[in-house]
């Protein structure tokens, strides 16, 4: 098997995908999170400001999902196919909610009528909340594993099997960290009374996160078999949960000092550390089979050919700096507080 710096190609691709999904969670995390607070703002103007805070950014942030999905398809087609067909209902709901959310952003402020805006506000709030929740539910299912049999075929329940207690808890945790992230982002982009209200809401959000995080962690430790084995073999990785804890503990301190950009960095780090924790715990498995570990999908039996992975790694080497450049340009152009003008939503 070909390697680069002593790391084999499937592992490298696993890292690439981890990076893409972290980027997606961090960037769309504050987009979805901001939307999940939407109905907590009462005035129409506040709601408009909140939508326009993500206005020029959300389309670009969403690209991380598109690239992440493509990268999964390209690098681990078996994982892509098995996960999506097994999680058919949650993914279909997720996709439909993405469409509704895009429509809400575009059409909400296009008309003046109160009923029109109220309807879209509800759609916007609901879709953002459920998207965050469903992403967590899927993650919870992946961590627990599926009923995968021979030939990677899913043999579990079709309609409601994805709604199990553990997955629900991961769903709440994901939603709560998105809401924390979203509130910090909005603090960065707003002024005045809306800003003051957000300071209050952020405290609620963090409380929600810490509560669901603690419950989920305890549940994971006691009910998910073998979850600590990896850490017993490599105790050095206990540093990951510790780092996640330190990062999140740092957020209130920075917010009280009004250093919102740094607070956003630290809540992003929390997310990244938690995802690393999951990634480390699963590696090299991608989808554990609950029927028999020999049917599990891992980065080796799911991977594309060495040749294909090599090609795609070079595509990443060329493309990543370009992408970084575009994002730098975009975020530089739109830094600072939201100012509504005639091009705003």
């Amino acid at each position, binding site marked *: 098997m070909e390697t680069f710096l002593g790391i084999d190609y499937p592992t490298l691709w696993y890292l690439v995908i981890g990076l893409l999904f972290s980027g997606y969670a961090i960037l769309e995390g504050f987009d979805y999170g901001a939307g999940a607070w939407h109905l907590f703002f009462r005035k129409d103007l506040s709601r408009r400001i909140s939508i326009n805070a993500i206005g020029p950014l959300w389309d670009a942030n969403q690209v991380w999902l598109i690239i992440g999905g*493509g990268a999964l398809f390209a690098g681990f*087609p078996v994982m892509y196919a098995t996960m999506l067909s097994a999680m058919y209902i949650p993914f*279909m709901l997720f996709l439909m909610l993405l*469409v509704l959310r895009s429509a809400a952003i575009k059409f909400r402020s296009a008309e003046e009528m109160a009923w029109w805006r109220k309807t879209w506000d509800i759609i916007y709030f609901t879709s953002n909340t459920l998207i965050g929740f469903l992403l967590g539910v899927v993650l919870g299912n992946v961590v627990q594993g599926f009923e995968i049999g021979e030939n990677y075929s899913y043999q579990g329940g079709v309609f409601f099997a994805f709604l199990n207690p553990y997955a629900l808890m991961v769903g709440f945790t994901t939603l709560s960290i998105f809401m924390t992230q979203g509130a910090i982002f909005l603090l960065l982009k707003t002024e005045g009374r809306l800003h003051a209200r957000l300071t209050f809401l952020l405290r609620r959000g963090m409380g929600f996160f810490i509560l669901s995080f603690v419950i989920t962690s305890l549940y994971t430790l006691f009910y998910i078999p073998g979850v600590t084995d990896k850490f017993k073999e490599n105790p050095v990785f206990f540093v990951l949960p510790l780092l996640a804890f330190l990062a999140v503990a740092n957020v209130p301190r920075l917010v009280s000092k009004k250093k919102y950009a740094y607070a956003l960095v630290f809540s992003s780090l929390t997310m990244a550390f938690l995802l690393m924790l999951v990634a480390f715990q699963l590696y090299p498995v991608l989808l554990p089979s609950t029927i028999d570990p020999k049917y599990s999908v891992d980065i080796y039996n799911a991977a594309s050919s060495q040749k294909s992975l090599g090609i795609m790694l070079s595509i990443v080497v060329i493309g990543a700096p370009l992408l970084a450049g575009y994002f730098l340009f975009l975020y530089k152009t739109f830094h600072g507080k939201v100012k509504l003008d005639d091009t705003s939503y």
Partner: protein
Amino acid sequence: METEILARIQFAFTVAFHYIYPPLSIGIGLIMVIMEGLYLKTGNKHYEVLTRFWLKIFALTFGIGVATGIIMEFEFGTNWAVYSRYVGDIFGSALAAEGLFAFGLESAFLGVLIFGWNRVSPRVHFISAIGVFLGSMFSAVWIVVANSWQQTPAGYHIVGEGFNARAEVTDFWAMVFNPSSVDRIIHVWQGAFLAGAFLVLSVHAYYLLKGRYIEISKKAFKIALGVATLVSLSQLISGHSSADGVSENQPAKLAAMEGHYEASSAADLYLLGWVDDDTQEVTGISLPGGLSFLLHQDFEEPVTGLNAFPKEDRPGQVNAVFQFYHIMVSIGIFLIGLTLYASFLWWRGQLFEKKWLLRIFAFAVLLPQIANQVGWFAAEMGRQPWIVYGHLRTSEGFSQEVSSHQILFSLILFLVVYFVLFLLFVYSVNKKIKQGPYKEAENALEII
């Protein structure tokens, strides 16, 4: 069987709906770049007003294109799991390249393009417009490469057997430039240019008929007419080259397009007709030996017919393929006639004098849209029964573990959501057109 049919219906519906929007974005994008370029070059305010106006409609089509496109990206995995495992090594890399090179470019610059008027200089704004336009062009490239590889696989070998069989890349560039890629990309790009140009023509023809925004509408109409005339002519060349390629690489598809059954005989070229698959006869108006002539410049030269293939290896819906293909061709010919005639009047300085012609242009916006849709229907139905030509059948490619009830659930959801989305789109575009590029009461621009 039921699952397969539902999966196919759902995919066809979602992709056909999606395909209304990206071609519009690519086409409007091109015209918008020309408009903004003219503004920078001449400093004429009219071009700025036009750019701002078309940008609003562009933003709408682009947004719906992205939203419905994400669904396509994941639908391969949800509904076509076996296919996804089979082609992931090849199809996936094209899709990943698309995300990184095309979507990254267009989405990042889109924010600046739409919301950045007051934040960046006119030059940087123009560069953003070009960035978005190029991004949309690239995005067409990679997905068409992936689809073309399904039609005419190249640069790969098959590894494994039975359920574990899959295609792996052996030569990346041979895969990218497979026999049909270039023809089809050009054909798709040009179809997109026509979709955008005819929307611009339609809206400004409507203004001219109503006597509103006359000065700027004349300018916009001329830009779009220039594009439409050149592109409809070159679409004929690209269409011919495509057909040559199909006859070589997918003879069964070409035979279905013309309803040609006899295994090896001279083939006719139909203007219109009706195919009876049972009697294997076509009723209609045709040029005897016409297809033979087009392909081989000889009316007598035999063309491979459907009967040269076993029944299970050729398209099932011959008449549908025939009809879709002929609708596309007829529209193409009509657009050439229409744009050439209008250009002739332009040359004579009489372009805006004929009301009936403007009326035709006001409605002609639907024609490239229809041609784009039926062209794809012909291409994809003509590829049947294969999902990867000659290797994997459509009936083997769908997700076995997904039940027909699940697909029915998602299909109904798609139908409802897309119906609402379409109404919103039509309503918003219509509203923007009615509002116009600027407030007429101010009337400042007609004076400039």
